[in-house]
């Protein structure tokens, strides 16, 4: 906590660029997002990276990774900003996805357009965020985590078994695609052109990041930090912990809702088994690995984890076999790196990568400036450690 005060009181060492970015935050985010959006498809054409897939494959992956970036950004609000450990985040993702599935498919016969449904999906998810968040307000730390985990388990089971309302295990198919209604000659987005989805998800992510930055620097953002650091102190300073926490749940959930709408529109089908616990913990791993609390870091973490799991390790087999490396002899052992069946090993490698990345960068790959300060400038301030789920440990 004293680190926070240091920052507020001390003179800010700012470069010209940083000052500009501080003053024109949304513009800077926009410019940065455009740079990244243009750079990513170019980077993947570089040698080595292109061995894992052609540009179109990578962009398909990026569009899908965008869903996880949104999930990570939303979860970061709950876990990183407000310090509430949520292990059932996939529930809100499911709710967003099913909202759009109901609104635009043959199952209900409705056909609402995609763009306004983005907001509706976010809104519905936010309502559920509050509904599911409300009973957990009394809970502290890891009890909160397990209740959210419980909700995360219950929601897919309900979607799976309430056949009449959800079409059960078969899920809902034939969901409408986004359309520009002839603008720039584009109607439905279709299934073969990933670039349209890529641009769409980038626009959504950019807007979300702009909003999150504003929230982070607002009164609410500061209230979240206060609650994260010390709930009792925050309450005694006049912060309404109930509404502040519920707001974190609602905003986190609404981002997942956005992701859900985009996801179901892109995939055109939803089934309950797409929203199980593994989505929740993958999103959590993305947040922690990226650097809790750091918006850009979390987005980068999501991209890295997704690409590692769904492109890098999945295509490692093709890549290594194409390399045709000579065998390496280690004494009696002959290792032929091009002959190993990497498909079998991908989950082992994924686990190793997760564990090693966390061991090498315990604060995440891109820790937020605030946390870095807490960890490195005051290693001895143990007694100030917060008791909540995500604060620093004793």
């Amino acid at each position, binding site marked *: 906590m004293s680190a926070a005060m240091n920052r507020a009181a001390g003179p800010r060492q700012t470069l010209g660029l940083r000052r500009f970015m501080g003053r024109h935050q949304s513009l800077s985010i926009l410019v940065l997002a455009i740079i990244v959006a243009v750079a990513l498809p170019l980077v993947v054409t570089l040698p080595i990276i292109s061995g894992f897939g052609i540009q179109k494959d990578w962009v398909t992956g990026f569009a899908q990774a965008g869903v996880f970036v949104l999930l990570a950004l939303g979860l970061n609000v709950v876990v990183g900003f407000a310090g509430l450990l949520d292990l059932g985040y996939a529930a809100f993702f499911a709710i967003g996805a099913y909202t759009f599935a109901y609104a635009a498919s043959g199952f209900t016969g409705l056909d609402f357009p995609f763009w306004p449904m983005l907001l509706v999906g976010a809104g519905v998810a936010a309502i559920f965020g509050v509904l599911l968040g409300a009973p957990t307000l009394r809970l502290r730390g890891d009890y909160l985590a397990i209740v959210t985990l419980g909700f995360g388990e219950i929601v897919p089971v309900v979607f799976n078994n309430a056949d009449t309302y959800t079409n059960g295990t078969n899920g809902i198919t034939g969901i409408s695609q986004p359309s520009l209604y002839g603008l720039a000659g584009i109607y439905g987005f279709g299934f073969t052109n990933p670039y349209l989805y890529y641009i769409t998800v980038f626009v959504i992510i950019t807007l979300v990041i702009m909003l999150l930055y504003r929230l982070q620097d607002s009164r609410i953002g500061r209230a979240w930090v206060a609650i994260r650091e010390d709930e009792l102190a925050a309450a005694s300073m006049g912060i309404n912990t109930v509404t502040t926490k519920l707001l974190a749940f609602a905003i986190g959930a609404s981002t997942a809702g956005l992701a859900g709408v985009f996801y179901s529109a892109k995939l055109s089908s939803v089934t309950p088994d797409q929203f199980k616990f593994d989505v929740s913990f993958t999103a959590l791993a993305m947040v922690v690995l990226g650097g809790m609390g750091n918006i850009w870091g979390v987005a980068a973490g999501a991209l890295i984890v997704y690409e590692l799991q769904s492109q890098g390790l999945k295509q490692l087999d093709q890549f290594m076999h194409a390399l045709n490396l000579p065998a390496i002899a280690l004494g009696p052992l002959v290792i032929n790196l091009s002959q190993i069946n990497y498909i079998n090993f991908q*989950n082992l490698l994924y686990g190793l990568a997760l564990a090693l990345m966390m061991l090498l960068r315990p604060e995440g790959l891109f820790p937020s400036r605030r946390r870095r300060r807490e960890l490195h400038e005051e290693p001895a301030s143990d007694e100030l450690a917060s008791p909540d789920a995500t604060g620093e440990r004793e």
Partner: protein
Amino acid sequence: MKYARVGAALTVFAVVASACSGSTASPSAAAASGGASGGTGATINVKVGIELPMTGGEAPNGVPTANGVALALSQIQVPGFNITINQQDDAVNGKHSADQGAKNMSALANDPSVLFVVGPYNSNVAQAEIPVSNAAGLMQCSPANTAVGLTKGDAAKALRKTYPDKIAYVRVATTDDNQGAGTADIAYNIANAKTAYVLDDTQTYGKGLADGFEAAYKVFGGTVAKRDGVPDSTTDFNSYVTTLKSLNPGIIMYGGVTTSGIGLFRKQMAQQGLATIPLVGGDGISDGSAATPSSYLNIAGPDGDANSYSTVAAIHDIPDPAKFSNDYKAKFNSDPGAYSAPGYACTQIFLEALKAVSPGVTDLGKLREAVRAYVADPTHTFDTVLGKVGFDANGDTTQHTISYYQFDPTTKDWKFLKQRDFTADPVK
């Protein structure tokens, strides 16, 4: 020091990996050597995509199916083509993932040399892939999907959104309604059971099959004493067995696959002395003899399970049925899985189509479309390891024959009972 630890870990991995890779030859490597020998003169390099769950709990379903494809490619050559495999895996975090499936399908569609895809295994994945393969005009053949809505009715039209009348998805297994009727036929007419306890694994295949059973069983005149579902991750079936004891039904019908734990259910029944009640299931449980590791019969009991029946959605009286499993065993040193032969059949269909359309065509894009059109054409039939297979206007196999099997205690394997064609001889 930290980096030293990373290095050590990677070295350990490399050693473990190379130690294991001796026994688990990757299918793509195996096929590459088989296909290369067939080429003469100017060969065109083309690929068959395989899109199946290869890791996690569903690997026992996906891997033998992929092996079936590799076996077909190694045995059958098409002059002028060097055919290799583009292997994709739709399992993420150890289970099938629809969005990974759609992504894999896009990757296969983006690879111009891929002319045909075998897969997927799960209906939920198929739902996400059919729109992609349809839009890309890339024919995919599922060895395992049986959910009715994938091909029939408005739901299927909605899946084929881009070109509703262009079929780019076919399947060699007939739908749940037929196979469900087959299991009901066994239960009512062969096992003479008038009451049934129906259990499904709460997954698409299991629930669909159990629904098909219930519908047909009631038509036959049977009574469903109880219907329940058991989540596919369950290992403790004892409470279901106890319930079963009080019902004392004429037969148990299980809708589900071996990897959902039906073998355990049977084992726990045997433990409580209830293995005398017969059990019937679909092709998800006819996955090899009692000697096949991890098969239903292998898990059910040390000597298999005397009172089990199963169905397979395919005809039985094909020429030399043992040849396929012997060839498979010779190549992979294990028994074929439940869907190895369908995987083989899908590949045969592709190779036959390629042979028919290839003269004079060298452009990969044209070949892909020609293969798609040839396979989808309802007038064509294909000679496969599953017998003569053709596809109707929806892409469903025209072969609606269900084969019935019963456990044979002497060979400790499934024994063919009879087969019934549900087109010629529907349930009345």
